[in-house]
């Protein structure tokens, strides 16, 4: 044996394989190996059998649903969850075709509607046109809640979410932009002077009451109309970019990137989802106004501050968007549910009685209940009685733990911005 080993060049892999085979044949009796293999096969068969039954019961309904979505070209795989595997690509297809792309296009259409209402208003400002414009603004803002969490691809590159929904708006900056008409909306210093919160200021904050606001729009030399249209055009332009980026090629690469790596679609989307839940939702909408990160509440940090009454509505809509995405519900029709994170979790926890997906859904419902108890205007709530706001924060934080700790552990997905070796 030793001589044999010496004869070979040890750096050659084929030598090693030869050596391995030789030593296996000569030195080791094959019986234990054979027994082990037998045991292994036995176990697998047992396992597979029971899982097939279970998953067939679990998923027959779901598969049906997915197939019935009728989105002709998107071939939703009918082997969604089989014996002992989960169809990651089917989940990605559901995300792309039934959730992300429709969310963007619904939002895009809402912006076109907003633009046309804005043009009406600019043409001849009246109480009616202003009210229509505000409705279109709110409608767009609600649709945006379904888009913000998908900070991938072009959206990430152009700082889409920061340009559409960074708050609080900087009213001084906006006023000086309007006064000078010399501004570059692409500059990061202007991110707080545009988007929905820029519009919020333009529609609700430029004067004490509606009459005065209308007066300002009736005087073209004051430039409010120009800035209004510019902001909306910019939002449309950005949204077109994002929407166009989801062409066939990008969609294909998205749905084919099924691996579990830092740059794969699944990991990026789930990381973005959690990041959004923690920052965009928990901190921005509730935590910061409630003074979680400061000595005292900060009422001017609420979403849509100048419109006053919409911060709760927007947060509630965001909760719904989060819930729908988590469960894989389609954007156009919530009842058309495809594979989502909750199904992926259920597959991993196929042997567990208490399911994490159930816990997360329950917690999301608790969040909805806590939000429902709040004043429609969070800036009023934090000043009058901050305690309910803190309670709402706590139940959201509890879900951050479920998503970030429990869920990421089950899915064995790394937080994508922490890179180093591990053991």
């Amino acid at each position, binding site marked *: 044996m030793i001589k044999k080993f010496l004869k070979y060049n040890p750096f050659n892999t084929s030598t090693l394989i030869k050596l391995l085979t030789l030593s296996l044949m000569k030195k080791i009796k094959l019986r234990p190996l054979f027994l082990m293999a037998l045991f292994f096969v036995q176990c697998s068969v047992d396992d597979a059998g029971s899982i097939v039954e279970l998953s067939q019961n679990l998923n027959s309904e779901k598969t049906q649903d997915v197939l019935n979505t009728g989105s002709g070209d998107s071939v939703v795989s009918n082997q969604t969850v089989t014996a002992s595997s989960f169809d990651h690509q089917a989940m990605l297809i559901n995300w792309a075709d039934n959730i992300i792309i429709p969310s963007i296009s619904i939002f895009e259409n809402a912006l076109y509607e907003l633009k046309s209402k804005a043009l009406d208003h600019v043409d001849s400002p009246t109480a009616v046109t202003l009210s229509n414009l505000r409705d279109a603004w709110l409608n767009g803002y609600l649709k945006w809640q379904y888009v913000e969490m998908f900070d991938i691809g072009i959206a990430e590159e152009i700082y889409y979410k920061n340009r559409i929904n960074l708050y609080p708006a900087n009213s001084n900056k906006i006023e000086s932009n309007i006064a000078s008409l010399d501004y570059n909306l692409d500059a990061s210093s202007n991110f707080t002077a545009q988007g929905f919160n820029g519009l919020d200021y333009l529609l609700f904050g430029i004067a004490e009451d509606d009459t005065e606001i209308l007066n300002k729009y009736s005087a073209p030399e004051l430039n409010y109309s120009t800035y209004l249209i510019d902001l909306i055009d910019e939002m449309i332009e950005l949204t077109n970019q994002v929407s166009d980026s989801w062409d066939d090629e990008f969609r294909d690469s998205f749905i084919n990137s099924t691996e579990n790596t830092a740059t794969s679609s699944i990991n990026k989307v789930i990381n973005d989802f959690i990041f959004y839940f923690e920052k965009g939702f928990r901190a921005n909408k509730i935590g910061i106004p409630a003074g979680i990160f400061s000595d005292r509440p900060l009422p001017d940090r609420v979403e849509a501050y100048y419109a006053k009454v919409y911060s709760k509505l927007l947060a509630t809509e965001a909760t719904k968007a989060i819930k729908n995405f988590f469960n894989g519900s389609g954007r156009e029709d919530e009842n058309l549910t495809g594979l989502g994170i909750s199904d992926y979790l259920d597959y991993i926890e196929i042997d567990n009685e208490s399911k994490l997906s159930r816990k997360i859904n329950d917690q999301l419902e608790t969040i909805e209940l806590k939000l429902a108890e709040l004043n429609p205007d969070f800036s009023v709530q934090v000043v009058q009685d901050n305690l309910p706001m803190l309670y709402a924060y706590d139940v959201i934080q509890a879900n951050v733990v479920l998503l970030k700790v429990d869920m990421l*552990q089950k899915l064995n997905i790394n937080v994508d911005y922490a890179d180093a070796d591990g053991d």
Partner: protein
Amino acid sequence: MFKFIQNYYSNKNAHPASLAFFRITFGGLMFFSTLRFWSKGWIETLYIKPSYHFKYFGFEWVDDFGSLTYLLFIMCLITSLFVMLGYKYRVSMISFFFIFTYIELIDKTTYLNHYYLTSCLAFILCFLPAGNYFSLDSYFSGQKADRIPIWMVDVLKLFICIVYFYAGIAKINSDWLLDAQPLSLWLKSKYDLPLIGQNLMQLKATHYLASWFGMLYDVLIPFFLLYTRTKYIAFVFVIVFHVLTRVFFPSIGMFPYIMISSAVIFFDSSIHLKLLSFIKTTLVKINSFFKFKIKPFRTKVKTKTIQPNRLIFISLGCFLIIQLLFPLRYLLYPGELFWNEQGYRFSWRVMLVEKRGDITFKVKDSVSETFFYVKNEDFLTPFQEKQMSFQPDFILEFARHLGAFYKAKGYEHIQIFANSFVALNGRPSQRFIDPRFNLLKARESFYNKNWILPLNDEIKGL
């Protein structure tokens, strides 16, 4: 007994080729892994960029040198190269040990068992005459060793045996063997491996088999490597096992390569000679191909027998005894080791648990009762935050850092509380640190940290 030790001590039956080959692979691997570390940009992201470093208890004085930290790594590269070539071996080896260990001490966030392994091996190599054979030192001096005391080779073998054995018995616990955790979680997520990802990796049987095989491998491999008749087949297992770990867990980095190359030390010196002569013929070929005209080894070289040294013998003996005892220190602490992590590090617990956490710190004014939460990311990198979230000594250190920070900003009467949740090996997350305990009241020490809440479960085992 004494006589036995006496005889063993003066037994000079080992060949210097064994140490020479070990030195070459060790130096080479260190050179390569330092380059790899650099190329990944980790010098910047792990050592220079963080404004705050987590310190090892007793080594708070170790710090990075800003962009001069690169100098440390350059020195690390040079010394490891010199070690490989056997140039000014003793000085290079000792410098390498100190520089490498210094780098590791900068921030305990980056702690990895194989960095500690590297430091330990480097420490042992400082004492051994590994530069007297097949080295530039002996090329220039015309002198080479012919025999060396056998214990100078055995110490490396024994140390590697300790590493394996402790890694193995750490796996003898109910989570690993009875629930196949955390391998179950880890292997299921390898669905993207070609051929086996969607089937084999998803099977429970695979998870159990891998767990048991891993445990048995670690516990038994030292004995098979030591026993003459099994060492060759054992080495095949070493390669298969470590290559597999590298395939399944790419983030394990250099560890498999270090273990595979270290295990070569268990072979007979005749094999090491053979390997060295392979290197030699390659070098000669390169030399003649490029017509470098480098003179080959002098044919007439003086040989010298390395004499045993009592001081080195005792030092290395003590080192091994410490290595045997140190991993057992966890027995002195109450509570679940995997949860509390008191005595977890420096004990060869490799790829043993899956743990994740989330933590936020509440800074409270004890007089006005007002409070706010800290944004960890204002102070820490994502990697530091992640490592801190489930390790109590990190949590305490950071809380005290926050205390000092806010006191310096003029806050008085402050208290710091942790709102922290951790999940271990697939269990549901549960509260980790007593939320009513003001962390500023505690101080890092070897005493039990009684402000860690107990795990709501029992893990049986060693």
